[in-house]
């Protein structure tokens, strides 16, 4: 007799319970993925970064329009055109690291007793680029878009100084070559910005401090960054010209084949001359002789 009266309240209560539990879970699983859920300080950092970027882009647009103008007026004024090409070449030299550069900036020095992993170096580079570094080097290596950073284990047990057993020591490599201590990273840019980017609370220096690594940061009024010594040969990349592709697509099949043959022929020619040069660089690059003391 009692049972039917029981059912209703219990059902209601459990229903509520279920709803609340699910609400609870929802509140907890939701995680921030868009701007509305970011912290204020992060938003401020984004605004700052984006404003700087906008400013630089505006300057770039001015540069480009000047270049375009001098290009268009080249028939009258060849000198102007030369100057504009010179300016563009200088910018590209900085990006490609083809010549030695100087300027103010900071150095980050890591001594051999400081534990460091190659990913730390990657992170430091990343922070420096983010802080507006314009050119960076690690010891004698200019950092470019081809620079690789890795590590290798070297056996320190050699004939010259024998150890009781094999002792492998990790070394950091840049462009497949061991970098010797002290590792000195030089970066050209605003010294204050660059320093802050590394030392801000919770930044990379704080993270390294957890491992008892305290790289030495020095602000410099002028430092010299070497040119990139390694040669880069592009085997796979070629410039993409959408108009040409469309044209060849629209053409008859036979023409297409001809085009393909032509480009193939060109490519193989280019490759032949390049392979020789590559062979030379490869042998130079073969990185580490494990028996040699670094």
């Amino acid at each position: 007799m009692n049972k039917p009266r029981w059912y209703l309240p219990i059902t209601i209560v459990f229903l509520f319970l279920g709803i609340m539990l699910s609400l609870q879970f929802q509140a907890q699983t939701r995680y921030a993925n868009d701007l509305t859920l970011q912290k204020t300080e992060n938003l401020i950092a984004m605004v700052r970064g984006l404003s700087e970027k906008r400013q630089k882009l505006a300057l770039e647009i001015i540069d480009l329009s000047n270049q375009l103008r001098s290009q268009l007026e080249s028939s009258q004024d060849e000198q102007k055109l030369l100057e504009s090409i010179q300016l563009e070449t200088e910018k590209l030299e900085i990006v490609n690291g083809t010549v030695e550069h100087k300027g103010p900036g900071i150095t980050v020095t890591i001594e051999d007793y400081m534990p460091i992993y190659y990913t730390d170096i990657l992170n430091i580079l990343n922070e420096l680029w983010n802080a507006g570094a314009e050119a960076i080097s690690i010891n004698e290596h200019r950092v470019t878009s081809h620079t690789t950073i890795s590590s290798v284990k070297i056996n320190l047990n050699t004939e010259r100084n024998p150890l009781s057993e094999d002792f492998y020591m990790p070394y950091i490599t840049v462009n497949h070559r061991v970098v010797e201590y002290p590792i000195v990273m030089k970066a050209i840019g605003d010294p204050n910005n660059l320093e802050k980017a590394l030392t801000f609370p919770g930044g990379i220096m704080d993270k390294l401090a957890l491992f008892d690594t305290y790289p030495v940061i020095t602000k410099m009024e002028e430092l010299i960054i070497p040119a990139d010594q390694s040669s880069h040969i592009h085997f796979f990349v070629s410039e993409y010209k959408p108009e040409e592709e469309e044209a060849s697509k629209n053409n008859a099949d036979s023409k297409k084949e001809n085009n393909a043959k032509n480009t193939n022929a060109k490519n193989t020619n280019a490759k032949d001359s390049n392979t020789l040069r590559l062979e030379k660089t490869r042998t130079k690059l073969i990185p580490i002789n494990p028996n040699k003391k670094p």
Partner: protein
Amino acid sequence: MRKAIPTFLIICILTGFLLAFQFTTQNKNASFNAVSQRNNNLITIIHDLEKEIANQEDQIEAMRAQLNDLQSTHSKGKLQDLQTTLAKAKVEAGLTPVVGKGIIITIDDNQEGMKANPNDDPNKYIVHDEHLLNLVNELRIGSAEAIAINGHRLITTSEIRCVGNLINVDMSRVAPPYEIRAIGSPKLMIESISMGKLAELENDNYPITIEESEHLVIPAYRGDLQFKYTNKS
């Protein structure tokens, strides 16, 4: 009826407990909302800036393309040499779109893992800037010749960096899934990444696909090349 009273009591207490709990979390949410109200201004600014930057980048892209066209037609005498070296340097620097053989890697956040462990730290399931940074380095070890993440070409000065938990490539927000395109020898690149970060990510059950392509197009760098401090020595 008598028997029912203690049971009822327990249920009431439980409900009360939950209600209180619910209210506290709702209060927290309310204060959070207040913060995001204040943040709304900042978000509007960010959206405006991003729109403007997108416009500027379009403009730069168009101007660079126009400049390239002009420079390839105007070739006579001593200018010709200068312009051929310039054209090469542009390809090297990443100012031109490029095409070639390569691979496309896509990585997404591990959403299934996140759903399966809702109380776990979501940071364990999302792709971080460091993952991408390491992947890019490994692709370079595998002799990648040109790399782009979600359509953003990487050049020497490019950075991949978290602000909060949003990944920015050169201050442009990129969202998962991340598509990394790399031109180079597919074999070398896959070998290089599968010994490193990718294996780690696969172990952690992130959804990853690798696709080889004979004809991969990577866009040009659309950002600035403004250098204030660097001089030729």
